């Protein structure tokens, strides 16, 4: 699904909430957001749902879906601390 789709953000926010409810309580999950798809290296880089984990090696054990409502779900490594 393209970000140009007028329903994209409505679906993306709903999907983000779904992922947050299911995974944000996991100790290895640090952030769930909607942004540039790290696996799309074209000039028209599309948006994706991204789940940030503190250690990449734990991602497989989470059981994340590959996509929700046609929006890809990607995993990124990130551990965020107050500045």
């Amino acid at each position, binding site marked *: 699904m393209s*970000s140009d789709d007028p329903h994209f953000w409505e679906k*993306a*926010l709903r999907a*983000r909430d779904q992922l*947050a409810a299911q995974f*944000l*309580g996991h100790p290895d*999950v*640090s*952030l*769930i*957001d*909607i*942004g*540039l798809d790290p696996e799309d290296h074209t000039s028209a880089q599309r*948006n994706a749902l*991204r789940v940030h984990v503190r250690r990449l090696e734990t991602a497989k054990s989470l059981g994340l879906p590959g996509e929700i409502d046609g929006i890809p779900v990607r995993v990124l*490594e*990130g*551990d*965020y*601390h*107050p*500045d």
Partner: protein
Amino acid sequence: MNDDAKTLSRIRMALDKAVGRYLSDPNINLIDFGYPECDGQLVESKRAICFHVSQKLSGLRLETAVAAGQTQEIPPSIDGFSTDVREGRFRLSLQQWPWWNWRLPQSDPRAARQEVLRGGISISDEYHNSYGTLGGLVRDRISGVEMILSNWHVLVADWNARAGQRIYQPGRLDGGTGADAVATLTRDAMPVNLDAAVAALNRSRRLINDQYDLGSVRGVAQPTVGMSVVKSGRRTSVTYGRVEAIEGAAQINYGPVDRVIRKVVRILPRVGFQDQVSEPGDSGSFWLNTGTRQAVGLHFAGANFPETAVAMDMQTVINALNVDLVFVA
């Protein structure tokens, strides 16, 4: 013993946490990272966060001192690093003139006392030996009172804090004292999952709509993916970035508790640049659209691997706090 960059980053973060939490303890003189001691000898096969105290207490004496509020018990580890406690007192090896107005020389004006307040300079609450960034000038939507906007963990900084605690400029870790109080804590937005707070100015010094080395804020706008942004912060001064993601929900550790922070905006270095976007001490900075200078985010967190700044959507923050940014249209 050489550490890779990732380990060094973990060490720095653990030290920052230890300093923020314990250095204000009157019994603690220095917190650093090095070899622990055993029977008076350094153990060079190990490393630890080292607490240098005036008096090393244990057993009943420690319990009594803790109960009396004279000191705190130091945990056996912080963020995976062992702690070590030893006695150590230190004295200054330089003199200042005039002695009755002594203050550490500040080569960075952002760390110094500023007679006219603006965004991008050092502040802290009165209790914690730390500093963050004065974000900018806001006004209460009902009373019209002018306030400082920054983060919860800069202005409140403690789950037991109460409204009315004083805000210093510069922050305590930059030498701020009671004579430098500029505001009092008014309210915060942590109950609605935003690391943000406001403090009413006490009118001892004026706060203007200006971001240090950047100019004035010219409104509020929504961050969008791909937007070029810029901020002025106490630690890394003016830095540039690009919004890489929005509408995030983050799980962040605040000492004894983890909190979900919502409406998170993730900012990376600009494409093709080796930018540093933020460091500890930049918390509270305003992220502005580079072109329009409209405020799009309130900085509150970051990471070094990869280099990342994390902010909250500005419009959401000011709505939650019931304030408006003061800007020149």
